[in-house]
């Protein structure tokens, strides 16, 4: 069964599945942003990340991103999937896919979606290092 367009999951996200959710005959372009867990941050080796979500509100805020993108660009379809729980290096915290008639619209809508997600969606990331841990962006 196809997954919903807006989805928070503890299971690995498969980009191809998210892409397939937005494929459409009326679209000429399909833009995808995939967040990946880097092996380092600010020159410090990362062991793993832990993501936590206020799920019901996060779903609403993700849906708002799609609604607002639609107001600004002729979006054919957009999907936003975010993972929660423990993620290792190379795992995928987020996959955003958007189909549009033309590519410039797709780049703009995709960038808007990930930029806004990082500002408004109630999801929190903790970086685990060999010698400590921190909630990202919590402190100035």
């Amino acid at each position, binding site marked *: 069964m196809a997954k919903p367009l807006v989805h928070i999951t503890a299971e690995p996200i498969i980009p191809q599945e998210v892409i397939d959710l937005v494929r459409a005959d009326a679209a000429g372009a399909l833009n995808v942003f995939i967040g990946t867990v880097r092996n380092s941050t600010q020159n410090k080796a990362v062991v793993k990340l832990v993501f936590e979500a206020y799920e019901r509100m996060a779903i609403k805020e993700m849906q708002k991103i799609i609604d607002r993108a639609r107001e600004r660009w002729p979006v054919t379809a957009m999907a936003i999937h975010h993972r929660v729980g423990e993620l290792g290096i190379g795992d995928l915290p987020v996959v955003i896919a958007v189909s549009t008639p033309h590519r410039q619209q797709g780049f703009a809508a995709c960038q808007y979606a990930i930029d806004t997600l990082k500002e408004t969606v109630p999801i*929190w990331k903790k970086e685990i290092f060999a010698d400590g841990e921190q909630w990202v*962006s919590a402190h100035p």
Partner: protein
Amino acid sequence: MVTVKLFGIAKEIVGGSTLTLDSPVANVEELLHYLRERYPEFAKLTSLLIAVNDEYARPATVIHDTDEIAVIPPVSGG
């Protein structure tokens, strides 16, 4: 009494995933004041927002006992 949900660093600052207030708060501003007074670590965060019924709320938003209230420390998804 109002119970608030806690996430991320807010959960660690308070030491639990929910907090039931021991005195009433009329609105979001009073709730933020309550939290910063009892848990000074909240004042050190980059930002601190309150969600009422799954929506970001303004300081003047009134809080009812039946509302779902959540403490939103700086988000960092993606």
